[in-house]
C-alpha cells in the first residue's frame, strides 16, 4: 500500500500487467526513453525493453491501425495517444476497425486493445490539448469507454481494461493526474468495467459525474450537506459506455431530483444521454427538471480565459439547491 498520484497508479498498472502477460505491449509517441509527455510510461522501456515499449512514428492513425492488427494477431497492445485531441487523426481506425472487427468477424477475431489518452482542460494548454470528446466514443457502437476519477480506481480499471478482450477507450483526466494521492494496494486490483460507483449516499438529490469533475461534485456535496442541509447521492459513472443505468435509476427513483456535471461539450454529450435514460426510467419519480452543468458548445477556451469555463463547486451547489427547491 502506498500513496500514489494517478500518474503513478497508472504506471503501476502498466508495469504489473506487462509483468503478468508478455502479450501486453505499449505503443505511442515518446513513451519510451521519455516515459510519455506526462510520464505515465516512465521507466517501462528500460524495464521491459524496446520491443515491448514502442516509440512510434508521429502518426496516430498508424498507431491505432497497427495496434488493431497486433491485437487480432493475439497481442494486447496498450496505445497512448498523447492528447485526446489527436484521436481525431485515428478516428477512422477506431470507428471502422477497433470498434467493429469483432463484430465483422462474428467473434473470430477479437480486438483486445486499450487506447489510453489524457483528456480535459484547465492545464493551461494550447488549442486541441483540452478536449473532452468521450461522447464521440460513447456514440460509437462496439467500444467500452472508461474514465477513472482517482488513483486507485484508475489503476484497477486500467488493469481490467488490459485484461478485457473488448476494445477499450481509456480516458485519463489529466487535470487530476497529480492533483492528489490515494492509497493504492501493492497487489494487483481489478474493477469491473461498466459499473458506476455510488461515492456517497444521500436522499435529496442525485449528482452524477465522472473524471476530473467528480472531485468537484464531492466537494459540492459536502458543502450542500454542511451548509445547506441538502443530502446528495453522488454517483461516479467510471464508464460512459456502457452506462450503468440501473445504479442511476435506483438513485433517482429515490431522490426524485438530479444534477449531471461533466466537462465535455453539451449538445449530444453524456449528460444528454443520462437525461434521456432518466426520463425513460424515472419519469414518474421526477420532482424537478434534471439539470446539466457541462462544457459549453464552443472550442475549449484559450488558456487566458479557461479559468471560468468548467463546472465549479459553487455553481454545482447553487444549482443543486435550486433543483431541490423546485416545486
Amino acid at each position, binding site marked *: 500500500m502506498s500513496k500514489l498520484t494517478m500518474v503513478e497508479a497508472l504506471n503501476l498498472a502498466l508495469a504489473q500487467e506487462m509483468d503478468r502477460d508478455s502479450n501486453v505491449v505499449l505503443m505511442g509517441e515518446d513513451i519510451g526513453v521519455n516515459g510519455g509527455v506526462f510520464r505515465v510510461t516512465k521507466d517501462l522501456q528500460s524495464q521491459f525493453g524496446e520491443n515491448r515499449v514502442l516509440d512510434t512514428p508521429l502518426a496516430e492513425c498508424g498507431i491505432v491501425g497497427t495496434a488493431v492488427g497486433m491485437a487480432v494477431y493475439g497481442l494486447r497492445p496498450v496505445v497512448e495517444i498523447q492528447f485526446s485531441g489527436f484521436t481525431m487523426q485515428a478516428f477512422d481506425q477506431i470507428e471502422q*476497425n477497433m470498434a467493429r472487427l469483432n463484430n465483422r468477424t462474428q467473434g473470430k477475431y477479437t480486438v483486445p486493445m486499450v487506447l489510453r489518452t489524457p483528456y480535459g482542460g484547465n492545464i493551461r494548454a494550447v488549442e486541441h490539448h483540452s478536449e473532452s470528446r468521450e461522447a464521440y466514443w460513447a456514440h460509437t457502437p462496439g467500444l467500452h469507454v472508461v474514465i477513472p476519477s482517482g488513483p486507485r480506481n484508475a489503476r484497477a480499471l486500467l488493469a481490467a481494461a488490459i485484461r478485457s478482450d473488448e476494445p477499450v477507450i481509456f480516458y485519463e483526466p489529466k487535470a487530476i493526474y497529480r492533483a492528489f494521492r490515494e492509497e493504492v494496494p501493492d497487489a494487483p486490483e481489478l474493477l469491473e468495467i461498466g459499473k458506476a460507483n455510488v461515492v456517497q449516499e444521500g436522499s435529496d438529490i442525485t449528482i452524477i459525474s465522472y473524471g476530473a469533475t467528480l472531485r468537484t461534485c464531492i466537494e459540492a456535496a459536502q458543502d450542500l450537506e454542511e451548509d445547506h442541509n441538502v443530502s446528495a447521492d453522488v454517483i461516479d459513472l467510471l464508464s460512459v459506455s456502457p452506462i450503468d443505468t440501473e445504479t442511476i435509476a435506483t438513485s433517482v427513483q429515490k431522490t426524485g431530483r438530479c444534477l449531471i456535471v461533466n466537462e465535455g461539450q453539451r449538445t449530444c454529450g453524456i449528460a444528454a444521454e443520462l437525461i434521456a435514460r432518466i426520463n425513460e426510467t424515472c419519469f414518474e419519480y421526477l420532482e424537478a427538471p434534471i439539470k446539466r452543468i457541462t462544457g459549453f458548445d464552443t472550442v475549449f477556451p484559450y488558456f487566458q480565459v479557461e479559468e471560468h469555463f468548467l463546472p465549479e463547486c459553487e455553481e454545482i451547489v447553487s444549482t443543486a439547491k435550486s433543483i431541490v427547491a423546485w416545486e
Partner: protein
Amino acid sequence: MATENPSPSTANEGQEVASSKTPSAMDTTPIQLGQIEVLQILNEHGEVDEGLEPNYTNDELIDMYTSMVRARAFDKRMLTMQRQGRMGTFAPNLGQEACIAGQVYPLLKEDWYAPSYRSFGAQIMRGWPMEHLMRLWAGFHDGFPPPQDVNDMPFSIVIGSHVLPAVGIGMGMTYKNDPNCVVVNYGDGASSQGAVSEALNFAAVYKAPVVFVCENNGWAISTPTEKQASSEHFAKRGVAFDVPSIRVDGNDLFAMIKATEEATTRARNGEGPTLIEAVTYRMSLHTTADDPTVYRKDSEVEAWEKRCPLLRFELYLKSKGVIEQHDIEAIATACDEEVIEARDKFYEMDPADPTEIFDFMHIEMTEELKEQKDEYLKRLSNKGVTDE
C-alpha cells in the same frame, strides 16, 4: 528491387540514450535513388523469358491455371446471379486473375492474407468455400468471418483501411519470432489514402514481414490513374519510405508469383517489407452498380483484352504441350460445375436470422444492448417475423 537498403530496424536496440545523426559536415553528394525493376516473364503473346522461366511440374502448372479459370467461372456466375436478383452488389475481378492468384500462390497456410473486395480468386485459393463467399456478397453477416482455419482478414470495404492492421499483424509476427508473413492487397485508388502511406512507413521502421501488393488496374471507379496520381508508377511510393519496390506485369502469373516469392522470402528472413506494384486492368464493371461506358472507351477495354492473363497462360501451356484445346474446355466446364455446386449449396443455406444483429457487438452483451435487443425482438414479434 529498388534502390538503397533500408536502414536496420531500431526495434531491438539497447537502452542507452538514442543518438541522432552524427554532426559531421553536411554530405553534399547527390542522393542516388537507383531504379525500380520491371518484371515480366510471360508476355501477352504467350512467349516466355527463357532466363526466368520457372520450373513447375505439369500438375502444378495445370493447378495454377485452374485457379485462374475457377476465379473467372465464379466471377461469371456471380454476375448472372446478381442480374437475376439473387445476389447483392458484386465487384468482378475479370482480367485480374493472374495478379490475384500470383499474390497468394507462394503463401503458406500459417501466413496471413488481408484482401480487398476484388480478391475472391485469392480467397478461394486460401480456403474460403465458394458458397461462403456467396453468403458474403449476398449480405449475410456469416459470410464475412474467415473460415476457422484460414488466417485471413475479412476483406476491406473501406478503401485502404485494412493496410495498417495488416502491418500490425506483421509487427506481431516479429514480436513473437513467428517466421511467417503477411500479404496485403489494395488498389491504385487506395494508394492515395494517407493511412496507406503511414502503413508503408510503419512497416519500414519496424521491418515488418509484410508484402504490399498495389494492384494498379487503371481505374478507381471512374477515376483513371492519371487523376489519382501524378506519376503512373505506384511502385515509387515504396521508395519514399524505404520499402524495396518492384513493378510487375500483373497479367503475368509467373511474374506475380516470382515477385511475391522473393518478397515473402525477404520477409521471412527478417529483411522487412516489399512493395509490389502489379500492373493489370479492370476489364469489367467496378461493381454491378457501375456503368463504365459512361467514363471509358470500349477501345481501351478491347486493347486490354489482348493482354488477358488466361489467354497468354493457355498459349504457353499449349506451346509447352501441357494441355490442348479440349483440356482448356474441360477445365472451364469443371470449374463452372464447381461453382454451380457451390451456388446450389448457397441456395439451400439457412436464411439470415434477424435477431443476430446484437450478438457480436461485444464478447459479452452489455445490459443496455440486452434491453435494446428485447425492444427489437418485440418489434419482430409484433410484425409477425418471429413468434416470440
